[in-house]
């Protein structure tokens, strides 16, 4: 089931070094790139069906075409390497194992959108990754693939690595821009969207590492070759990080559209220790959980996930076995999002802390049905009332656990509240 497109060089020793990478085809697309008009590159990416791999899945080529023409301002490219969502660990492989694939992708994207300056915003905790990436960028400058004459062509691409300081919210694209500008990482109200007024008020495209890294393959092999993988609307391949209670956790590149349970069984070795499946988090901690019966019918693509009232997300699949205490899990989940709320909007700032205290109260055995119902109501009261979707990234999954595993929560409050038992 596994394919090797993005991960083609992951198993090659020292592929992060430019010499080795070049031997295996790195930077080979540049001659072709600069022979094409930029519009054709955008068109090609549109045709390929490549969708943003940061989680939202917005078509990349379409995003690029939102850039206003002839504003007289520079166009910036920001590469989102702030990979911070619990259970998501795909971009780090690209950054360490094949950074030149991403740099090549940056050149392709820059040329397509008319940008000469790229900022790579990298998660602050990624110390190994930032070293590998910076070393690769230095090599690329030395070899003439970055700087004034990219690969000998009359085009300038400069790349700056900007390290975050450890805020999940800086993965939100406008918070990321604020952070690059040296401000506190807080999401901006939209409109205006970054394509119109982004970094330093200039038109800006923000793409995920994996989206950018997919470009060399598309340029080299064409849109059809990319579309050969995946489904009609969810084209191509994706790096899936499979973790949790499976026999073989790890990062696997798979075409989109495979059945989830089949992937868990055949690729990740199935639920560990012969235990039963309790649920699956399909795409990072912010995606609503799937029950085993839902997992039977869902496939790993944007459409099927949406049809199952969850999201494809970032490809971070977490398998939960029968021993998992869902109430504990929800406490961990709220704890994370509460900690990471930027504190800007009232509902998220005050509400997530309230939710955390309520779930702790329930866990401690002091909770009542009133608390449980309040927790559920707060999900609705917070969600979509805020500038960004961080609050929804907490309330959507929490709501799914509350609704799908209600009995587990009720068991915690049963001792305090006889009405809980009656309600069942």
């Amino acid at each position, binding site marked *: 089931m596994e394919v090797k497109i993005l991960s083609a060089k992951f198993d090659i020793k020292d592929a992060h070094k430019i010499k080795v990478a070049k031997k295996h085809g790195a930077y080979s697309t540049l001659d072709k790139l600069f022979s094409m008009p930029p519009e054709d590159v955008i068109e090609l990416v549109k045709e390929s069906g490549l969708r943003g791999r940061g989680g939202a899945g917005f078509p990349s080529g379409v995003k690029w075409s939102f850039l206003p023409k002839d504003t007289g301002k520079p166009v910036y490219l920001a590469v989102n390497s702030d990979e911070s969502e619990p259970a998501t660990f795909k971009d780090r492989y690209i950054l360490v194992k094949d950074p030149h694939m991403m740099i090549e992708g940056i050149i392709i994207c820059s040329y397509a959108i008319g940008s000469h300056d790229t900022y790579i915003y990298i998660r602050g905790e990624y110390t190994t990754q930032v070293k590998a990436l910076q070393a690769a960028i230095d090599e690329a400058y030395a070899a003439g693939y970055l700087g004034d004459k990219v690969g000998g062509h009359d085009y300038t691409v400069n790349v700056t690595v900007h390290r975050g300081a450890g*805020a999940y*919210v800086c993965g939100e694209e406008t918070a990321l821009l604020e952070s690059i500008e040296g401000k*506190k990482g807080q999401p901006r*109200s939209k409109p205006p969207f970054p394509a119109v007024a982004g970094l330093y008020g200039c038109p800006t495209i923000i793409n995920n590492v994996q989206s950018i890294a997919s470009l060399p393959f598309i340029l080299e092999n064409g849109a059809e070759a990319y579309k050969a993988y995946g489904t009609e609307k969810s084209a191509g391949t994706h790096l899936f990080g499979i973790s949790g209670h499976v026999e073989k956790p790890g990062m696997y590149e798979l075409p989109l559209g495979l059945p989830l349970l089949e992937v868990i069984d055949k690729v990740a070795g199935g639920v560990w220790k012969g235990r039963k499946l309790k649920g699956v988090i399909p795409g990072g901690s912010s995606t609503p959980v799937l029950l085993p019966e839902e997992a039977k019918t869902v496939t790993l693509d944007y459409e099927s996930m949406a049809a199952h009232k969850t999201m494809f997300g970032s490809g971070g699949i977490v398998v939960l076995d029968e021993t998992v205490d869902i109430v504990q899990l929800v406490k961990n989940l709220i704890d994370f999002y*509460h*900690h*990471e*709320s*930027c*504190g*800007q*909007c*009232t*509902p998220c*700032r*005050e*509400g*997530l*802390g*309230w939710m955390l*205290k*309520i779930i*702790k*109260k329930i866990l401690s055995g002091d909770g009542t049905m*009133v*608390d449980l119902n*309040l927790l559920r109501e707060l999900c609705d*009261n*917070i969600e*979509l*009332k*805020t*500038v960004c979707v961080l609050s929804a990234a907490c309330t959507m999954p929490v709501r799914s656990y509350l609704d799908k595993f209600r009995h587990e929560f009720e068991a915690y409050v049963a001792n305090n509240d006889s009405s809980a038992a009656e309600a069942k």
Partner: protein
Amino acid sequence: MADKIKLFVNGVEVEVESGKNLIDAIGAVGIEIPHLCYHPALGADGNCRMCLVGIEDGRPPLVPACKTPAQEGLKVLLDAEHIKKIQHDVMEFELINHPIDCPVCDQAGECKLQDYYMSYDQVDSRMTVPQVTKGKKMDFGAGVVHDQERCVVCGRCVRFCRQITKTGELGIINRTDDARVNIFPGRPLNNRYALNVVDLCPVGAMTSKDFRFKQRVWFLKKAPGICHGCAKGCNITIEHNREKYKDDVIYRFRPRKNDQVNGYFICDAGRLSYKAENEGRLTEARLSNKAIPVDEILTAASKEIERAEKTAVIVSPNCSLEQMIAVKALAEKLGASLSGFSDGYIKSGDGDDFLIQDDKAANRTGLTLLGIDSSKQGFEAAVQGAKLLINFDNDLGLSYEEGALKKLLQGIKIIAITSHDTDCVKMAEMAIPVASYSEYAGSVINCDNILQTFGKAVTKNNDLADICAIAAGLGSPLASPEERFSALQECIGALKDLEPDQIPAKGLKLNDSEAANVTV
């Protein structure tokens, strides 16, 4: 005047000004959209989420009204159940970690949380878990005391220090419900407008050290006034109260919005200048430094004036136009030379490019316009050989060293008609107490040639006479307000066709020729 556009609020067509956001445009016609973080002087931030409204045209279901421009035909939904629920929910979130210490909070009575609780919430608290605790009674410097627990993190104060004073002392540190306003360690508020953050704060998080615990705000009487702290003439609200068995006392000045003068703000020095209205006043008439009744001193002064061979008159640049014209008429009648010399009121280099002016006098433009000479030579020539100097509230101690002043005025009898007990009073043969600017009505012209009127705000137990009345008592022919106003009309072209009550509340901007008017 901005263009008018028509839009719909809850299905009802309203006509509003274009070019504004929904809060201001719809607010101007009396429909409130609740908001905490938005302030017209600071722009929209969109963090409080209290102003979320629906727009019935297929855009995202909710938009912040502060960030949504009023547009022709827009269908704004305000009274729908889901919008009311958001307002209620946001209020619930604002209040869960709020100490609700209203009984001891200075903001009580003028607090947006209280107002909005009554308008949009009105339900019992559902908070059964411990509240977040933060810093209390934090001294932010410049007389500002901060309570982090009362704070709703709207960031108005932060934006004020960044956008208006450009000093940036305040920031919001930490994330999530630990977010709080703070100063940087060892770097307190250090700008001359810092106390405006107390007004800007919609809740009781920012309080003024000066005003804290002095009065419950609902007891304060509010009267419009003009600050006399400098030549800018910032519009203020004089907030005063007469407690039982006590005198009418001013407790604070607050800025009053006037777009063509001071906008929304005033400087801290001006704000605190209310103290000079309460303290250091001359409240009794004195003859040779001994208290005597006012009517007796007037008789004595009149005799002195009759006796004097040569009299000089000096008037303060803080006096109102009405006072100046009355004094001028008196000087003319006495054949005395009149001076407005007051160089000491000007503190060169003290002004800035916002509100604060070098000139600490409220009506120097008035002096010029009425043709009153303000030169030092003029004044010194006038007192040369004079036997009597009638000083209308001009603090000569600002313009001269004590020794130099004594030398200059040697052998001259002084009648000091003054609101404050200054050193000049001690030098005077006779001292006559008069009302200060919060106790009389008048008009002044600011540094930008804007003529502004103000009414009598405070009536003291010992209600002192206006300089106009004293001037009349000493023989000024302009005895009535009507006579003074028509005399002013002759000097100031812009007043010619106006009745006194027709002077606009926002002030009358004199054009260049009127401001350069020299009719004398």
